[in-house]
């Protein structure tokens, strides 16, 4: 009985802890790599903006971000801006992040723009 409950508790903890760990990882990655241009709060107002002729995307802009699919965001991160007909100022991060990390970052960006929609269960594909 004790063993079964232990297994049950461990499984439950893993279910809770794994997404939380991923979320922390994605948050740290966003803070480390994306923040310099997209800003501390993802509002497209990073410290490097004065040097850029194209304004980085405001990830909290719900109206615009709702028009982008997860695949497009994934492509923009992995292959850079030109892969989604955007500026070269968005570099390709495919060599920096693993596949999993890019997927986690897409998830993190969705929390910045579209938390309500995620709760509502909108499928961004």
């Amino acid at each position, binding site marked *: 009985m004790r063993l079964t409950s232990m297994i049950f508790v461990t499984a439950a903890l893993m279910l809770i802890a794994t997404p939380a760990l991923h979320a922390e*990882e994605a948050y*740290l*990655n966003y*803070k*480390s*790599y994306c*923040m*310099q*241009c997209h*800003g*501390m*709060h993802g*509002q497209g*107002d*990073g*410290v*490097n*903006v*004065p*040097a*850029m002729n194209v304004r980085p995307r405001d990830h909290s802009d719900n109206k615009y971000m709702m028009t982008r699919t997860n695949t497009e965001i994934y492509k923009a991160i992995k292959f850079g801006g030109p892969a989604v007909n955007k*500026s*070269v*100022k*968005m*570099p*390709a*991060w*495919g*060599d*920096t992040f693993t596949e999993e990390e890019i997927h986690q970052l897409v998830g993190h960006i969705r929390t910045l723009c579209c938390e309500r929609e995620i709760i509502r269960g909108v499928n961004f594909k």
Partner: protein
Amino acid sequence: MKRFLLLAILSVAMSPALASAGDMGANILNQRCSTCHNLTGPAPQTIKDLWKRDAPDLFYAGNKFRRGWLVEWLQKPVRIRPAGVNYLRTINSTPKNLDPKKGQKYDVLWGSVLKPLQHLKLKKEEAEAVADALMELKPHDDLIAGMMLDKSQQVSLEKGEVLIDKVYGCFSCHQIEPGFGGYTGSELYTAGARLQPAFMLSYIKRPKNWDPKIWMPNGNVKPDDLEKIVNYLILLSKEDFNASN
């Protein structure tokens, strides 16, 4: 025979002096530099380790720097990265108290990077000895093996700037003139004088090989453009930026 004896005596007399010069560099490195700089490697392997870094890694200094520049810089240290080595500590979010129509609409630098760099200043002989000791640190010979700059691929300053800004977007993070460019990367206008050409070729080609978690992305630079960019950086470093100021 007499000459031979004289030479032998001289070499015996000189060797402690040479050894002490070599020791002085290593001693200064170990006693005064190692508290902030990583002299033994490896580079940070996780993002959390990266944020713990207080100063640039020096364990591959011999693969990276030009000795002459090191000697000069160690006597007159100045900041190379406008946002510091670790920009998470030096960037503050957009000031909220400002009128968004009038005030800045982007994150700002704050803290120690707004003041002149606080770094140990060495005397000339100390700087020479430390530079010698640093130039011995060459664990990454494999990464620069075969990296030879093709000097025939020269570009003008204008064309180089197009590559840096419009084609590869390096300008967003790096400055090509004092105050002209982004903040989070190291300044590019001194790169040609500071770094060995083989290192620049290798690092731009794949920064991750040198520093696995670094925030400089792999720009997938075409081989010809890589040569042109490094030639441009060397050309750029010969410009006198104080002349226009």
